[in-house]
């Protein structure tokens, strides 16, 4: 059986769907001959040909806009933006067009496309290669925002995203692309979209996160357990639409919540979760909702990167504060 990294799981899902569905076409810069700069699409052009795994000119707006046209004609394009730092050139297409095509035409035309991009910091990269602005996309009606945190969920959620009839922005946490392996059988089974995954059960405090920070969250939960704190860990996975019910049910049980994201604090997606908790979960809360986040600064270049990225120590301290609050 296959033990795959998150990256290999992405590759496996793409390969599976290319084989299963003739309408699936991949496009992006350097994805064909080079197999993608992270090798997410390695071997796919050899297997499926240059007409299904396209090396595009260097033009992000084209990549996203073309995917819209392809999707409207019934293909299932999976477009890659090489880094989230370059995704901003596609915002016009995604926000003004992809998210609105179904609505604008009253369902006559639809947009079943996936826009994938590696995102997040922690790999000591040059400027613009460590972006974590997922909350900007989560704000947009008409799209889905999906972020896997493990090889198995990357495989399942990517399959689900490709099969979904509406646009999906699929952000891959590059820091954990190769960090761990997991048994990922190539069954072609899609994971469930629009739900949070409870990774660990606990009774004292709910720890909510997504993407690479989940790795640190689980470590923090272990450390907290040694201190006698029982932590329930929730992986949001689909940021939009948000399954708030799972989080509320958890907080009803524990009474305390810590949200972790590497994105900058203000208007980060943690704010949406916290607002929802205040709105619907106030009566269950024994302590203020804690957010452990990146600073409201620009991601520094790599010499200071470790100061910016939230660490397990910070998370554990937040868990303690939540539990000890009087």
């Amino acid at each position: 059986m296959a033990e795959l990294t998150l990256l290999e799981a992405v590759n496996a899902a793409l390969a599976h769907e290319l084989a299963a569905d003739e309408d699936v076409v991949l496009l992006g810069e350097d994805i064909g001959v080079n197999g993608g700069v992270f090798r997410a699409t390695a071997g796919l052009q050899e297997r499926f040909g240059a007409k299904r795994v396209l090396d595009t000119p260097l033009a992000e707006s084209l990549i996203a806009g073309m995917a819209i046209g392809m999707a409207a004609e019934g293909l299932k394009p999976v477009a890659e933006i090489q880094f989230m730092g370059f995704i901003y050139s596609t915002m016009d297409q995604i926000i003004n067009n992809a998210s609105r095509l179904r609505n604008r035409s009253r369902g006559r035309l639809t947009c079943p496309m996936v826009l994938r991009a590696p995102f997040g910091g922690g790999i000591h990269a040059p400027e613009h290669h460590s972006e974590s602005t997922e909350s900007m996309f989560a704000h947009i009606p008409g799209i889905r925002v999906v972020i896997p945190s493990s090889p198995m969920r990357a495989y399942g959620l990517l399959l689900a995203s490709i099969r979904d009839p509406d646009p999906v922005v699929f952000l891959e946490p590059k820091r954990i692309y190769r960090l761990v392996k997991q048994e990922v059988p190539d069954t072609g089974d899609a994971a469930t979209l629009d739900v949070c995954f409870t990774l660990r059960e606990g009774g004292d405090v709910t720890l909510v996160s997504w993407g690479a920070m989940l790795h640190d969250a689980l470590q923090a939960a272990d450390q907290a357990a040694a201190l006698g704190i029982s932590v329930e860990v929730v992986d949001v996975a689909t940021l939009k639409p948000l399954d708030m019910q799972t989080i509320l049910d958890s907080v009803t049980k524990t009474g305390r919540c810590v949200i972790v994201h590497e994105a900058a604090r203000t208007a980060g997606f943690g704010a949406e979760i916290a607002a929802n908790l205040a709105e619907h979960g106030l009566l269950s809360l024994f302590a203020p909702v804690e957010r452990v986040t990146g600073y409201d600064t620009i991601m520094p270049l790599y010499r200071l990167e470790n100061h910016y990225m939230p660490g397990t120590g910070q998370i554990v301290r937040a868990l303690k504060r939540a539990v000890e609050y009087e």
Partner: protein
Amino acid sequence: MALAVFNLPDLGEGLADAEIAAWHVAVDEEVARDQPLVSVATAKAVVDIPSPYAGKIVKLGGAVGDIVETGRLLVEFETADGSAAGPAPESADKGTVVGAVAVGNDVVEETAISVGKRGAGVKATPAVRALARRANVDVSHVTPSGKDGTITAADVRRVAGILNELGPMESLRGVRRVMAQTMALAHADVVPVTLVEDADIEAWSEFDVTIRLVRAIVAGCRTEPALNAWYDGHAIGRRVLKKIDLGVALDTEDGLFVPVLRDVGNRAPDDLRQGLEAMRRAVEARDIPPEELRGQTITLSNFGMLGGRYANPVVVPPQVAILGAGRARAEPVIVNGEVAARHRLPLSLTFDHRAVTGGEATRFLMAAIEDLQKPE
């Protein structure tokens, strides 16, 4: 093993030779590629030359101070394989174009976590639980078919299919909903023990079961006030109450109502009768105000009106006791050594053993029975 020869390269602008200024390696030394080999002085400058190969130094082409011509031997190597020949091999695929992506070898498993309260031993992975959530299936009700008692996705889909065929679930509202929530709460907190005994009511002159039961409860509370109390499980404390506000369980079309007859210890039987009647009417007319459904200090469940003998009725916190009465019936009993037919009333007393001892409960029950056994 291969022998590789490194000649003095053209250091630029057609310089013909260079003088060895300093050696940085010695014969028999293992060197790495790019490791500084030698400094040579040309007509223009001192130039450091790095090693083009990895391997062992076999021979040096001269001593410090010697002049070496361009293209003549500088260093001879013994290399591990043929890698010395030809250009340096391609650098390993780093799998990124910027930065460094950490590579780990740990294999993680997503463990199936226990589902349902009290560690029933049934497990499901997060993905399966998420699927169940989406399909509106209560995971704790799914029979697992995976190894180690794990619920699989197929199990969830099977149950979802069954439920779909059965049609939509009826959402419980109003009194039924309250009952569901209250009983669940009671079950979670209370430690119930039920005591059963019968009262001999052969001597009764008139058959007014409910009022006699109310009086019996009052008698019980006078003997053992501990059963008329409110218990706080968090603080581990109790309030023994002077006033007896009796909850009377009533079964209606809509469900179970438990209105409160106030201060039964200080009211005459007729007053009680009227009070009961008024309560019944109000409940039937769905007219009973919420305050009248709150504040019970002890409860009576006269289920015998419908049938049945013994039960273990549920104590609803913060109360600590509930008396259940079954249907009165004629039975053969031994009286004075002989079998006789006597009318008897079966009683079941459930008490919360966190707050009440067996002795207290028994004495309460015996006092109640003593009162019940009086002719009037």
